[in-house]
C-alpha cells in the first residue's frame, strides 16, 4: 500500500503516532475510571430515589439539617450550613482549574499556590462534613438509628439515615482521597518533578478527579437537602 495520503480522515487517526482521542493515555484512563465511579454514585443515588419513592413517608430534610457549628441549641437554619459546604467545594474546584492552567503555562509558583488553596478547601469541606455527622450522631442518628419522624408525622424507618450516611460517607471518602492525591501533587510539584518532565499533565489528571468529586456533591446535596 502506497503512502499517498487518502481523503479519508481515518488515516489521520489510525496510521500510528497518535494517541486515541488525541489525548494522553493516563487522561483517557482517568476519564474511564470517572465513568465507572459515576455509575457507582448514580446507582447509589437512584436506589435512594427508588426507596424514597416506594415509601409513603420520609423525614423532612429542613427539619433534620437545620444547624451549624457554634449555633445555639435548637436553632432552625435549614440549608445554611450545606450552602457553605457547597461553596467551599466550588471555590476549591475553581482553584484547581487555575492550578491546571498554571501548569499549562509551566508556572510552578502558580501551581503551588493554587494547589495549596485547593487542599485547604478540601480539608475545610471534610471538617464541615465531619461536624455534620457528629452533630447528627449526637441527635441519635446513625446507621440503623433514625430519631427523625416522617414529615407527615408517621413513624420513619432507618432508610433515611442509612442512605444519608452511606452516600455522604462514600462521597466524603472520595474527597479525602482527593485531598491526599492533591497533597502528593503539591509535593511532586515542589520537588520539581513536573519541571523535569516538561509538563504538568499529572495535575490535569488530578484535576479531573477533583472536579468529579465536586460534581458528585452537586448531585448528593441536591438529592438529600433540596429535593
Amino acid at each position, binding site marked *: 500500500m502506497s503512502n499517498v495520503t487518502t481523503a479519508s480522515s481515518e488515516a489521520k487517526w489510525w496510521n500510528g503516532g497518535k494517541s486515541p*482521542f*488525541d*489525548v494522553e493515555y493516563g487522561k*483517557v484512563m482517568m*476519564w474511564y475510571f470517572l*465513568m465507572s465511579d*459515576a*455509575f457507582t454514585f*448514580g446507582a447509589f443515588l*437512584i*436506589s435512594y*430515589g*427508588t*426507596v*424514597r*419513592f*416506594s*415509601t*409513603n*413517608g420520609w423525614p423532612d430534610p*429542613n427539619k433534620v439539617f437545620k444547624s451549624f457549628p457554634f449555633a445555639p*441549641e435548637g436553632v432552625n437554619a*435549614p*440549608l445554611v450550613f450545606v*450552602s457553605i459546604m*457547597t*461553596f467551599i467545594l*466550588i471555590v476549591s*474546584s*475553581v482553584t*484547581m*482549574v*487555575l492550578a491546571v*492552567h498554571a501548569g499549562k*503555562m509551566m508556572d510552578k509558583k502558580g501551581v503551588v499556590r493554587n494547589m495549596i488553596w485547593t487542599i485547604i478547601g478540601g480539608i475545610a469541606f471534610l471538617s464541615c462534613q465531619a461536624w455534620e455527622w457528629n452533630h447528627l450522631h*449526637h*441527635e*441519635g442518628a446513625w446507621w440503623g438509628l433514625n*430519631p*427523625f*419522624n416522617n414529615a*407527615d*408525622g*408517621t*413513624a420513619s424507618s432507618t432508610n433515611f439515615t442509612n442512605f444519608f450516611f452511606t452516600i455522604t460517607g462514600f462521597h466524603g471518602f472520595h474527597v479525602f482521597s482527593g485531598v491526599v492525591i492533591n497533597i502528593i501533587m503539591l509535593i511532586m510539584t515542589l520537588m520539581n518533578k513536573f519541571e523535569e518532565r516538561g509538563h504538568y499533565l499529572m495535575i*490535569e489528571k488530578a*484535576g*479531573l478527579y477533583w*472536579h*468529579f468529586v*465536586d*460534581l458528585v456533591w*452537586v*448531585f448528593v446535596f*441536591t438529592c438529600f*437537602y*433540596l*429535593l
Partner: protein
Amino acid sequence: MSNHDTHSAEHHHEDVIAEIKKVTIILSVLTIVELILGFWMIGIESQGMRLAIKGAIVILMMAKAFYIVAYFMHLKHEIKNLIMTIVVPLALFIWFIIAFLSDGNSFRNLRNNYDRHFKEQSTIKVEEKHHGAAEKHEATEKHEAAH
C-alpha cells in the same frame, strides 16, 4: 520567543482566565438560585407547586453538571469522539432514573393496594421523638380513625 508569540500566549492566557471567571460566576448564580428555590419551597404546602419547584431545581442541577464537565473538566474542548464516549453512556442515566423511580412508585402503589399493614402505617401518627437526650425515647402511638 517572538513578540507575536508572547502576545498571543498572553492573549490566550487572558482568554482562559476570563472563561474561568465566567463559568465560576455562572455556577455560583445557579447554586444561589437553587438555594433560593429550596428556601421558598419550605413554606409551600401545595404538592403541585412543590413538584414544579423540584423540577426547576433538577434542571438547574443539570446545568451545573454541564458547566463543570464541559469547562472545568475541559471536555468541551476535547475531540468529538471523547465527548461522545462520556455523554452517550451518561444519557443512559436518563433511562436508568426514569425506570427506577417509576418502578419505586409502582411498588408503593401496589403495596398500598395489597398490603393493609403498610397502608395503615402511613396513617398512624407517633409522638415527636426528643432529640439529643438519652437513648430512651418514648413514642406513644395514637390511633387515628383509618381514613
